[in-house]
């Protein structure tokens, strides 16, 4: 499932967060949206998820326009920087949430839900912790629950907002490796936002560099490093 953004613009009050941004994520790609704080990268991600609505431009998944479709119908898995887990539910119920809220006709029976949740817990290496509450887990563990929860709905695309931002260096490195490996296995179209260029270059197939709401350059890590498109890219990546 590919993602296409066509001339997206979004203004908050008087502040233009995104200006005529174009972006394409091919099916199965893992793309990093890289830029400094305030560059509009999170806004772009949220627009793709349906959490913000642009004033102009279009978002489509595999060529089908989804701009007018609200978040709860888009099936775009989203992982928040702050995890946003449901604190009153167990880990199991957090992951099962997307399945439980399906319309009656599509909702799977309890044993199917159980199996799915258990296999996701395995995939994120948290088996056996299903009965715990989010408060009882560490930051890295909570982040993995957030992943599993988003994956449970079999999303068409996966969107990550600075997923490793709030974690310490060692955990960040482990999760990065885990994300890359996971992507190799599943080839789920994934777009993640980060301000950390090491992270972007290490994990992503392609990097899209954003500044002040516009796309500065898009290409593979090598392309971008060897042929920076403009002065901003050169400065931001610290090339000379």
């Amino acid at each position, binding site marked *: 499932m590919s993602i296409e953004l066509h001339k997206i613009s979004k203004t908050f009050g008087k502040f233009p967060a995104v200006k005529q941004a174009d972006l394409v994520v091919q099916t199965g790609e893992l793309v990093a949206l890289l830029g400094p704080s305030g560059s509009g990268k999170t806004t772009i991600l949220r627009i793709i998820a349906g*959490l913000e609505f642009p004033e102009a431009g279009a978002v489509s998944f595999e060529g089908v326009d989804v701009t007018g479709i609200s978040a709860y119908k888009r099936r775009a898995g989203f992982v928040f920087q702050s995890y946003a887990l449901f604190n009153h539910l167990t880990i199991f119920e957090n992951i099962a949430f997307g399945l439980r809220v399906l319309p009656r006709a599509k909702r799977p029976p309890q044993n199917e839900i159980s199996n799915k949740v258990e296999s996701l817990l395995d995939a994120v290496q948290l088996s056996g912790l299903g009965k715990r509450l989010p408060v009882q887990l560490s930051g890295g563990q909570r982040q993995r629950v957030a992943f599993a929860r988003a994956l449970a709905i079999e999303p068409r695309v996966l969107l990550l907002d600075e997923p490793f931002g709030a974690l310490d260096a060692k955990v960040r490195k482990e999760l990065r490796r885990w994300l890359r490996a996971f992507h190799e296995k599943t080839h789920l179209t994934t777009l993640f936002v980060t301000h950390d260029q090491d992270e972007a270059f290490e994990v992503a197939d392609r990097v899209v560099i954003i500044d002040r709401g516009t796309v500065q350059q898009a290409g593979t890590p090598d392309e971008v490093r060897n042929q920076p498109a403009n002065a901003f890219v050169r400065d931001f990546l610290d090339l000379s």
Partner: protein
Amino acid sequence: MGRKAEGAGIAMAGPISMVTRHQAGRRATAESPPVKVVLIGVVLLFFGLFLAMPLVVVFHEAFKRGAAVFVSSFTDRYTMDAIRLTLIVAAIAVPLNTIFGLAAAWAITRFHFRGKTMLTSLIDLPLWVSPVIGGLIYVLLFGRQGWFGPWLQANDIRIIFAVPGIVLATTFVTFPYVARGLIPLMQAQGSAEEEAAATLGANGWQIFLRVTIPKIKWGLLYGIILCNARAMGEFGAVSVVSGHIRGKTNTMPLHIEILYNEYQFSAAFAVSSLLAILALVTLVLKSIAEWHATRQLEAGARAGEPQS
């Protein structure tokens, strides 16, 4: 510490009247406009019916027979006596409770000691018990058959059915308000500034007057306003201890009751309208004081106090 939101609106709940994140137009997580309109409508209807109408009734009934009748309600000698007594009682009870509130808030928020929860619970006590109990306890102590009754009679001291009893009962019912207005505020502000003053050599009173009072002045005002409104309006507790002697031990609320029971409706509502105006003024001053206090708190937070 969940005490912040306890007890009807006198704790500093923060800038609730300012726009919250939820209102800032995040459409993905908002109800559809028709739903919003219905909910707002239901709430407005409920508030209009239950809250606004009684207020409207007071003023309407007070002026129903014309302004002349309204004014004549106050030329009655007993009415003037009742007003005077109410003012006197408030003038005694409020300052006493203010000093208590300051002392208690200082003790609770600036020191660590065991039994703090018990002390805070004790301060909340009048909010929990029926006001009638607030009067009962003093009758049991000082009434004719009370513990001190015989001794008081022997020395010709009258507390129950006299002004001192009214002052006591009113003081009891209203003593939490200043303390409760100050405690969350002073807790949130922290004692860093006072400690700094101490290291600079200031003594207790200087710290209190020069550092603490300016910081808490809006919270203090807020507590005093509320304490005063409750003191002037107290009915249940005073009803028990007063003896309802016209001209002597009748406060405004008690006098309103007498007028009403005598079918002097216009007069009853006329006097009520004074207290209703007081209530409205209290609400306005409360909003202003709350606004100032939260602004002060935020400014203090911004001014570089370390974020823990």
